[in-house]
């Protein structure tokens, strides 16, 4: 019975996902695409900060590297949008491992400080005139969204680029989420948590701390880098000022809202950072950030487990 109902749920969900983009107006689909992109980025950060306990205030840097890698490959090397994703993954994995080595010696707020410095330096580095021929300098690079591979109409709505990209992002996000879920539940995940909670004991039990920590950094960066590349495709534009330190802070907000260490919580976190600014913008241009800051602080005091943590509490509360 239970087996059938899980399958049934998945079937319903998939069917719903197929239908959804055709029910919504195009710009909403675009917003949801971006939300899914952020979800992947937030998931990447959560792997590092929520699970492995290493605080990164600079994940926006990996997002930027992924985005620019994709844009440069598409603009200057004729890559298709889809082909940029694995490249972005590999490049950002390497960048993450590179960052992971000094991170080995830093803990807590020192790592936060180093990554914060990285996040702040990124826009300047991107604007650097010497590499402007590749990066487009201050103006960035304008791209075009990939065309859907075929003509299609459903429920009276055409398969636009954004609707096609909806399926693309889902196709990228789903395996990434499932992979993360499996990794965390498996040996690697247990090693990561062991290192986070009892590093000395973990070392004594034969876990190679340096390797696991560095690889975690790399994996986390790769996820966020893929998100960046996908984001570049979805928005069809990259520019240095899109990747300020506030992007890194947004990702952190997403992690905290969704719940530290929760895989699927990344969806809630992403929904928050995608849609709350739109609502708050109506009040004032600065309002979104005031709301972010207030929510960050409030959550840490009241519900450090974020949305998923609140769910868990409710569930265990019922069980009593």
């Amino acid at each position, binding site marked *: 019975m239970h087996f059938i109902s899980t399958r049934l749920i998945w079937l319903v969900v998939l069917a719903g996902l197929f239908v959804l983009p055709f029910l919504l107006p195009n710009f909403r689909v675009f917003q949801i695409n971006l939300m899914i992109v952020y979800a992947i980025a937030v998931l990447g950060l959560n792997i590092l*900060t929520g699970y492995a*306990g290493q*605080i990164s*205030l600079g994940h926006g840097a990996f997002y930027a590297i992924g985005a620019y890698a994709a844009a440069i490959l598409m603009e200057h090397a004729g890559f298709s949008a889809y082909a940029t994703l694995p490249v972005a993954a590999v490049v950002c994995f390497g960048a993450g491992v590179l960052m992971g080595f*000094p991170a*080995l*010696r*830093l*803990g*807590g*707020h*020192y790592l*936060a*400080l*180093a990554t*914060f*410095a*990285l996040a*702040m*330096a990124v826009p*300047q*580095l991107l*604007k*650097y*005139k010497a590499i402007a021929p590749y990066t487009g300098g201050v103006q960035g690079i304008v791209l075009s969204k990939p065309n859907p591979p075929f003509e299609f109409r459903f429920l009276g709505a055409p398969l636009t680029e954004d609707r096609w990209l909806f399926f693309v992002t889902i196709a990228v996000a789903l395996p990434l989420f499932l992979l993360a879920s499996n990794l965390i539940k498996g040996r690697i995940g247990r090693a990561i948590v062991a290192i986070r909670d009892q*590093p000395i004991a973990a070392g004594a039990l034969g876990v190679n701390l340096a390797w696991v920590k560095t690889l975690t950094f790399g994996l986390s960066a790769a996820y966020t880098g893929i998100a960046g590349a996908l984001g570049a495709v979805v928005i069809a534009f990259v520019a240095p000022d899109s990747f300020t*330190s*506030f992007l890194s*802070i947004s990702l*952190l907000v997403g992690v*905290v809202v969704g719940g*530290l260490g929760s895989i699927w919580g990344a969806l809630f976190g992403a929904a928050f950072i995608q849609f709350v600014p739109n609502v708050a913008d109506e009040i*004032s*241009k*600065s*309002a*979104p*950030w*005031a709301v*972010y*800051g*207030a929510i*960050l*602080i409030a959550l*840490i*005091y009241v519900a*450090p487990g974020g949305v998923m943590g609140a769910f868990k509490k409710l569930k265990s509360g019922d069980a009593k």
Partner: protein
Amino acid sequence: MDSFLLQIFSGLANGSIYAALGLALVMIYQSTHHINFAQGEMATFATFIAWTLIERGVPYWLAFFLTVGIAFVGGLLVQRIFIKPVERAPVLNNVIVFVGLLVIFNAMSGWIFGQTVKAFNSPFPTTSLVLPQYISGHQLGSLGVTLGVLLVVFLFFKYTPIGLAMRAAAQNPDSASLVGIPVSWMLALGWGLASAIGAVAGIMMAPVVFLDPNMMGGILLYGFAAALLGGIDNPWGAVIGGFIVGVLENILGAYVIGTELKLSVALVLIVGTLTLMPNGLFGRKVVTRV
């Protein structure tokens, strides 16, 4: 040679600002072992308050001292209200609260005072009385003010009973409470003082870089570099570190990497110091903790 000296003096003037920020950061670090990521935004907010007072017709130096006083009280309140509840919480929670404060102060600056860049007039004459070919009037004045503030802080800590109590509370909170020092209030005072110093840095910086909500963002990074370079637990190391960073930034910017990548200098200094020289130049404690 001339332009070289120009860079040096300009670097020293900037360096005094970084020194002040670095000192504020070390003060909070010493007593709480936390890095105040919101230091820059709090300073910007205070600078906006000063600007508003001056716009309303308050004479410059009155506005200056009023703002410093308001910043002191503000910093104290922030510690009491926001930081104290998470004092014993894990590092991550603390970092998130600091980041939250950063964001709120930045947003409030924009919300209350607007996003447009504002001019901030310097109270000092345009031409310097000393070495006018190498240093502007404002640079000299700003150097003098920040050095004056640093001197006052030094004397405060060395010769006043409260300064001594704050030093004791920062070094050994257990023993400090055994001599009757209310340690938690000493932390609040430390925050107030750090916030006041930050306000001075902001007010001195505004005429140079113009005032907008993001004014202190990059400058805070230099403050971090100064604090780390001097040794994160050494307040006077941070001061020296600030001057070194200021001069280095200018020299490297003018002769080596170009002015666009100046922030990267800070980044390299920060990551480099943390990995290669965790104690900084003058620090005592070992930074590495995994």
